[in-house]
């Protein structure tokens, strides 16, 4: 429609004369600088090094697509990015669970192998971590997403709520429930309790 094309020519849209939409690319670059390193660390902790670069890159590519509609006033940009990353991580569910299971079975964690020296590598994970890994593998995806955003990032409950697009009460109840499962898995370490595994 006529008035729409006129709108495209309005100053500031930047698209009409083929000039790069400088403001948005700068915003994206700033977001990347500020958040990509911590985001990558989080993705590595969940899925290992291999898929991390792709997931981080895609997180920002998706962010770029939505940059126009993203309203900074609605909340924290970190929450927004972690929310996008969480969805992308969800596509690798089997890999993530497989990594926890392997850790629980063997005591060796391939996720941390690239970052530890040989001596450390020979020391296998202690019983608590193995049980923790087993419990993480058994959580629902929603509970795992929520718990790990709380434990492995610096997001507050409110920011996790924004990231997952759920009310803060839901974050609270998911964390409580997931923590309960972890606690019970760890309590199984008590030698007087029969190990079901």
């Amino acid at each position, binding site marked *: 429609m006529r008035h729409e094309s006129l709108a495209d020519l309005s100053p500031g849209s930047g698209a009409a004369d083929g000039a790069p939409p400088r403001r948005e690319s700068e915003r994206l670059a700033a977001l990347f600088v500020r958040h990509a*390193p911590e985001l990558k660390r989080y993705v590595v902790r969940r899925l290992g090094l291999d898929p991390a670069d792709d997931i981080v890159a895609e997180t920002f590519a998706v962010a770029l697509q939505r940059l126009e509609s993203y309203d900074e006033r609605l909340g924290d940009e970190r929450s927004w990015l972690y929310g996008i990353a969480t969805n992308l991580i969800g596509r690798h569910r089997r890999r993530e669970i497989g990594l926890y299971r392997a850790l629980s079975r063997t005591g060796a964690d391939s996720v941390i192998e690239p970052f530890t020296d040989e001596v450390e590598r020979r020391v296998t994970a202690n019983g608590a971590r193995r049980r923790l890994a087993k419990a993480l593998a058994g959580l629902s995806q929603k509970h795992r997403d929520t718990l790990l955003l709380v434990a492995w990032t610096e997001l507050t409950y409110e920011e996790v709520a924004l990231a997952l697009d759920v009310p803060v009460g839901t974050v609270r109840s998911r964390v409580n429930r997931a923590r309960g499962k972890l606690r019970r898995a760890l309590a199984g370490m008590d030698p007087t309790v029969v190990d079901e595994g």
Partner: protein
Amino acid sequence: MVNEIELLREMRDEVPGRLDMSGAERRLAEMTARGLPASGGRERPAYRTWLGLTLAGACVLAVAAMAVTRTQDAGAGLEAAGSAHETTRPTGAAARPSGTVTRPDGVAMVLEQAALVAARSTTTEIRPDQWFYLKESQHLGGNLPPVEIWQGMDGRKSAIRQQGGELKVTAAEKGPTHSGRTQEEVEALPSDPDALLRHFRALERGLYPLSICRPGCSSEIADDVKVFGAIGWYMKFGPMIPPDTAAGMYRALAKIPNVSIERDVTDMDGRRGVGVVFDAGEGVKAYYVLDPDDYRYMGVKVMQGEGEATGMSVLASGIVDRPGDVP
């Protein structure tokens, strides 16, 4: 005792904060050069060079920026996790022994008045195919907008509408409770205030509309906070509380030590009401704000010392026939 969250935080902590970002940067440049991935945005070839150039310069700063982000308060989320349990871990909060506090006049009178009004209200018949609706604000230090929630009384489905968003109906969130169970619980509650106090004190799992002491209340006041918390938690479900039970709750509030009345307070959404105040010591006060006309529960507000306040207000609630309906 092992703390599962601490153990979890240590897990894979070996992954360093200073990871090489060049791979992600290159992939991002490739993705933007191709047009954009997956979710079907419109193509923007102009980004290609711009993004590459901007990122190349930007990444020099990445390490410095990262150092800043990692020093942010790492404990915030977990403090909240701990407080949700309201453990009785001593925190040094200035607890006062029960019963030795001189109460301002009026707490029994005001709450008795509230009880009488509640007792005269009509009973709502609720069918299992109906929904409990709650619109609540969330002033929790962030920028969370109010949220509308519908919970099926049969506990099978729930629905949510975020501000400006679409209605989303899903299977009910798995959890220890749901509206149907809450209804059964409130219907089974005694209406005698002393019996209510005993009941809430004996609850296995503390119920709180909002954490009062962070990370936990001192053992001297823990039982009182537990009772105060449980009453507020149930009051949020006002439309499903039988009149006699609601009356009993107001009378029970009046019997909790360290509870007083502030006649003119505002909730976190600026609405005026009557404040039922629990003083947890050390400048921490929890308010239930009641409607000045019918004493209906309007919301909770917790003041932490220097004017720092959090709270959630009930903006609307009721029983409706379908998700998306409002009373």
